[in-house]
């Protein structure tokens, strides 16, 4: 089996979900990674720790252009005779994996959450996290897009050989006019810990206690749909069926009742803590730990206890 894994390293770093995709690939077969941009060779060699044996890096392509990225991946797939191509189902994966699938007439299983079964089927998320499907890929080349944070990474020591790789990229699809960086250090879709709040907080001026808890944990902040819609919080913080779907290790929700649409965006979380004054709030049915209490009292107390824990360690 020859496996090709595409990872996006344009911000100069190898993200956790990229490591996950590389290790996932290495468990299927001998893995070559293809990437592009200015990222350093020594940084790329560390992909050996996740199981890659070789890294192909294209220095010419420095944008996210899906058409050019597709041409790069297609050329790399041909050069290593890949029979499986792996992506992370992140923003880039969503833009590029379908193009690669159509270009190679290779079936795509998107949203994978586990390695292929013995019969070759791939378990994927469907119905917005409310069910799983088993996908059979009927083509010779198989494309798999892996849901971030669904498989762990166990690093071993290995060094990947790094080679420059050139390909005919064709014309750019567009001109990039501007890149606006999001504020804050922790990006919600990648966050392992998330603190979220809803209308129960009564107004945007009360978000300090949410941010304090998030800061004590090193967590990202999120919110429910109504809160984003009325402008208390920015839209990129909205988690739920029509907002961002997240899969953190810990999701703490304060003052959110837990409508089914909200649950669809967070039910991939490993542990859910719900804080609500209403003991009948539907969210408690999806929670691992529940606190029937007032967020205005509970959150500061929780923050203080977290700070105590952090001071000990």
């Amino acid at each position, binding site marked *: 089996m020859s496996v090709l894994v595409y990872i996006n390293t344009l911000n100069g770093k190898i993200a956790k979900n990229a490591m996950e995709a590389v290790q996932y690939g290495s468990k299927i077969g001998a893995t070559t990674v293809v990437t592009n941009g200015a990222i350093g060779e020594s940084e790329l060699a560390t992909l050996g720790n996740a199981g890659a044996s070789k890294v192909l890096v294209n220095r010419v392509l420095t944008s996210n252009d*899906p058409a050019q990225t597709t041409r790069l991946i297609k050329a790399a797939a041909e050069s290593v005779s890949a029979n499986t191509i792996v992506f992370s189902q992140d923003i880039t994966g969503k833009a590029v*994996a379908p193009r690669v699938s159509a270009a190679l007439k290779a079936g795509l299983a998107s*949203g994978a959450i586990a390695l292929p079964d013995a019969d070759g089927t791939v378990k994927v998320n469907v*119905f917005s996290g409310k069910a799983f*499907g088993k996908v059979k890929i009927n*083509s010779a080349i198989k494309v798999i897009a892996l849901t971030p944070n669904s498989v762990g990474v166990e690093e071993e020591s290995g060094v990947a050989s790094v080679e420059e790789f050139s390909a005919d990229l064709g014309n750019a699809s567009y001109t990039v006019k501007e890149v606006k960086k999001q504020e804050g250090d922790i*990006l919600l*879709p990648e966050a392992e810990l998330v603190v979220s709040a809803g209308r129960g907080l009564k107004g945007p001026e009360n978000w300090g206690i949410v941010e304090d808890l998030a800061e004590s944990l090193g967590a990202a902040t999120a919110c429910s749909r109504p809160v984003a819609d009325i402008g208390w919080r920015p839209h990129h913080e909205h988690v739920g069926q029509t*907002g961002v779907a997240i899969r953190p290790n810990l999701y703490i929700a304060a003052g959110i009742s837990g409508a089914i649409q909200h649950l669809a965006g967070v039910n991939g979380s490993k542990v859910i803590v719900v804080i609500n004054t209403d003991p009948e709030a539907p969210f408690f049915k999806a929670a691992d730990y529940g606190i029937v209490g007032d967020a205005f009292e509970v959150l500061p107390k929780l923050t203080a206890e977290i700070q105590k824990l952090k001071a000990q360690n």
Partner: protein
Amino acid sequence: MKLLVCISKAPDTTSKIEFTDNDTKFNESGVQYIVNPYDEWYALVRALELKEQNGGSVTTITVGTATDDSIIRKALAIGADNAVRIDSEAGDAYYTAFQIAEYAKSNGFDIVITGKETINYNGSQVGGMIAELLDQPFISLATNLEMDGTTATINIEMVGGVEVVELDTPFVVSAAKGMAEQRIPNMRGIMAARTKPLEVLPAAPCDALVSFEAYELPPAKSDCKYVDPENMAELVDLLHNEAKVI
């Protein structure tokens, strides 16, 4: 400006998700189908706004059987000019994209717009596949789209921010939250939708590349463990030592 909006059906967001036939089929009994929210709220409504600003036409396309006509009429009631249904079970994403690309090739559109994903399969596949089959640029996860003549300025969601790009038509774009606001059809729209053209065309030969063999539901969540609101030390202890997440 000729706009093609891809419309898929999806079970209402409050539907109970269950499976039948030995867990190989979605149990449709009692399920109300709606226009996939991303297709309706963001793709269709933005297309209508672009038409209102620049003139032109908005056509919807659906790959599906006659049971899909009710959601297609809903799209017409919201304001699309005409609809096309490729008369076939939807098959997989590639099959669907292939049908739409074939129709788009022979009818020439300036922009093909999809929702960013359906809420039942969550694949985010069809838009990118259409673009590849048409050999056109694909803009994935657009949150804003403005037209000036034939030049589009589009905001794209990126890891850690937003990228603003400029390109000329034709292209394919998938619409995410922020593109537009939901529109509720009014009575005039609903009445007009009844007589708007809905063309039914045969499917082009194409093999699906993947198949769903079976489905399963997630394991039942164990009962919620309640913690006294006065005792946050206990919660921190549970998260640290039992759940091991902090």
